[in-house]
């Protein structure tokens, strides 16, 4: 088994953990058995180090910062400042309590330098499947969502992953469930008795309920009705009340799976023929039911195989994964191992996502242009140091950006555009000009380009810079 071929195939070319492994099986096992160690460069061209603990934030710390940010921003708004002063104070306040930029550094460096890249690579797929983009305060939470739900859940069951994703405050905020209140909930009844039914604005918001069915689980193939969607929203009402008119509340609430009985809709609900009990436990019954629904298995099997093995291969082989899913009750370790195996068997080319490509070419060349954890926010044309969050944004593939809940595309057609190719050429150029490549481009061509014709064409390019860029942007490196 050619592990170098495998590693490149899933976008992990020249990853250290592939060295010395005897088989794919042991590689996957080792990878899933060990936690990710976050490593990073402290500065551009510096020495690799462990990510500093003072730049890690758990959910409680994040919430505390948001609450403080909110309190101080209220104080700024009420203070006696000129418009200009207020504008500046607001910006400074936002910057002071925000951690999203730090998180993006951690993410980008991890993609190049962390141990356990297989786990990371799998986590990107799930982070995209359960997309959370920028909305209100979500940028402050996305990293926590990725690490606690996706990375920690990579070795569990799909059922757990689903429940943990749906109940994370990032998801509850991104798809508006924080505003979803049962029309017969205690809160609604109180409001109606106080203000009268006609002027009382509380009720369902079906955004998360709809996407839970359409995107996260059964897909439209299940032919659910509008009633099913409404009932999903009713089951979800009560989840995510962490909110206090337009921002995060300082009320003491448990932000881990935030639940508020006052907002929940009493009574049993029917979703796709399944009776869901009332109260907090209802959601777990619903997500467990959806997680094991045949349409969910079919939809996600096809999606994950498409992502790692190609669309045509997925058409022909999804059923094998569905069978395994049924046999193992959605054990992700078994599913992931199978998908990795399939990705080797499939000869179909898979177009790498931009960041996956960035990570792979950085490893293949040993070049880097991203600023390090002691240089957060540094982005300087003169010293040629680039902020990783900008790189990911410019590549059109930043998990912290605003986007639709169906996430980034797995279709090559959506990425082969003048805009995207232009940016890959520029990025490869930056790596050559200022990234200090550690490996010679000819060695990279000899080692990683398989087709003789392409190999010869690349080697025959006389200008070294052009040869470097053409190799990194060649079909065999972009589409593996």
């Amino acid at each position, binding site marked *: 088994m050619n592990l170098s071929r495998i590693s490149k195939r899933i976008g992990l070319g020249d990853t250290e953990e592939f060295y010395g492994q005897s088989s794919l099986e042991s590689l996957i096992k080792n990878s899933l058995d060990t936690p990710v160690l976050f490593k990073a460069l402290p500065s551009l061209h510096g020495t690799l180090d462990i990510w500093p603990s003072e730049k890690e934030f758990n959910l409680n710390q994040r919430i505390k910062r948001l609450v403080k940010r909110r309190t101080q921003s209220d104080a700024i708004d009420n203070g006696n400042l000129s418009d200009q002063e207020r504008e500046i104070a607001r910006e400074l306040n936002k910057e002071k309590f925000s951690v999203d930029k730090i998180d993006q550094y951690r993410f980008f460096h991890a993609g190049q330098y962390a141990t356990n890249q297989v786990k990371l690579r799998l986590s990107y797929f799930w982070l995209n499947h359960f997309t959370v983009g920028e909305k209100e305060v979500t940028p402050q939470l996305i990293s926590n969502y990725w690490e606690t739900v996706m990375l920690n859940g990579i070795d569990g069951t799909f059922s757990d992953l689903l429940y943990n994703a749906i109940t994370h405050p990032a998801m509850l905020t991104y798809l*508006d469930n924080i*505003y*979803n209140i049962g*029309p017969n909930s205690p809160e*609604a009844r109180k409001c109606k008795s106080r203000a009268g039914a*006609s002027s009382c*604005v*509380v*009720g*369902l*918001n*079906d*955004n998360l309920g*709809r996407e839970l069915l359409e*995107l996260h689980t059964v897909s*439209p193939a299940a032919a659910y009705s*509008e009633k099913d969607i409404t009932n999903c929203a009713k089951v979800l009402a009560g989840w995510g009340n962490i909110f206090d008119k*337009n921002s995060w509340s300082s009320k003491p609430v448990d932000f881990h799976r935030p639940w508020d009985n006052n907002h929940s809709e009493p009574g049993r609900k029917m979703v796709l023929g399944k009776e869901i009990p009332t109260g907090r436990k209802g959601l777990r019954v619903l997500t467990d039911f959806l997680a094991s629904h045949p349409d969910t298995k079919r939809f996600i099997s096809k999606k994950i195989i498409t992502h790692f093995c190609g669309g045509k291969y997925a058409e022909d082989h999804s059923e094998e994964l569905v069978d395994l899913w049924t046999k193992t009750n959605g054990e992700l370790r078994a599913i992931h191992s199978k998908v990795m195996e399939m990705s080797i068997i499939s000869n179909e080319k898979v177009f790498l996502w931009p960041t996956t490509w960035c990570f792979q070419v950085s490893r293949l060349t040993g070049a880097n242009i991203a600023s390090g954890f002691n240089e957060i926010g540094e*982005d*300087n*044309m*003169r010293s*040629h140091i*680039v902020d990783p969050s*900008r790189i990911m*944004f*410019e590549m*059109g*593939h*930043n998990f912290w*950006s*605003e*986007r*639709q*809940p*169906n996430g*980034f*595309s797995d279709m090559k*057609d*959506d990425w*082969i*555009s*003048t*805009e995207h*190719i*232009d*940016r890959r050429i*520029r990025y490869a*150029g*930056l790596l050559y000009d200022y990234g200090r490549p550690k490996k010679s481009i000819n060695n990279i061509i000899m080692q990683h380009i398989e087709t003789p014709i*392409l190999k010869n*064409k*690349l080697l025959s390019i006389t200008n070294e810079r*052009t*040869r470097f*860029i*053409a190799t990194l*942007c*060649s*079909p065999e490196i972009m589409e593996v």
Partner: protein
Amino acid sequence: MIRRNFLKALPSSLFLTGFPNLGHTKTNKDGRLIVINLEGGMDGLCAVPPIGDKAFRSARSDLLVNNNLSLNPFFGLHPSFKSFGEMLANDEATIIHATAFPYTKRSHFEGQNIVETGLLTPFSSKSGWLGRAMELAGVGGRSLSLDTPLIVRGNMVVETFYPSNMRGSAVPNIEILDALKSIYDGDALETAEVLKQQLAASRNAPRVRDPEGLATFAGKKMQEPYGPKVAVINVNQFDTHANQGTEVGLQSEQLEVVDNVFSALKAGLGKMWDTTVVMTVTEFGRTLGQNGSAGTDHGYGSACMVAGGLLKNAGIVADWPGLKTNNLYEGRDLLATIDMRSVCAASLEATFGLEHDEISEKVFLDKRIRRIYNEIFT
């Protein structure tokens, strides 16, 4: 406010296409068509509120706009539409209300696909209605297919425009693009070729990325004698489930962006405005009633804004279905009584000079589409 786009993943983006194929053009008319795609499901009842319908006010008491522009006793216009309102006053704009593509299942992704393909079944085609119409009209015949929004996919040259802001990076040079061309095939090869053409042609392109800036750029490019005849501009954030706002707030800001896009296009197009139609499309409208979070959920019928020098008379084209519960689609959404495909067909007729029956049969693959050209354009 922070905006998203960069093709699929980005805030707003612009696509220019329909480059004249010298000597081979079959078009009867030298028109220009610009589609503004409002992503997320635009609330037509907020953009063009039926203030004369009694059921309207009570259904969304927290979303009512106080200073609507008055169109007639029945319809108002959201105050964000200052430029569009002037266009209406000058008889160069019109509104089609209670309209939608024939899709009622309220999914963004299926709905957006139908807006682009113009067909009845989601994900059933690899080409878009505008792309097929351009082929039929012989607008831009060079056989290069690219990336690009599905709506214009067919077989023509498309330029996407969203300038890079990769600090300190060098513009791809001819040598690199030639090297890439020698190792690419298929779509990637065509992409490298277009990049090369862009390099030669658009050195002086402005570095703007907001919808208004892109619209100005589009207008200027389309004013050129051999410039593109078709543009698509995406504006997002119309999925107003929560805190939609009134005369201020999220929806108001986004409508103002749309209004600015209209005025920037007009300014950029100069005298070519006279040969242009600009129209909005969206995947669906939103519920009549507000939800529990001062927003609206996915619905059905919406409104379509059309402007351009090819319009003769301002007006509101609607077969108003009413907003009483039993008039609503499934008791909750504005019913669509005008098929958006009819509006698209009329615009294609006005700009490319195609016959309605031909558009109906060959662009939308459905012979039953009603012709409403006269209602909009005469």
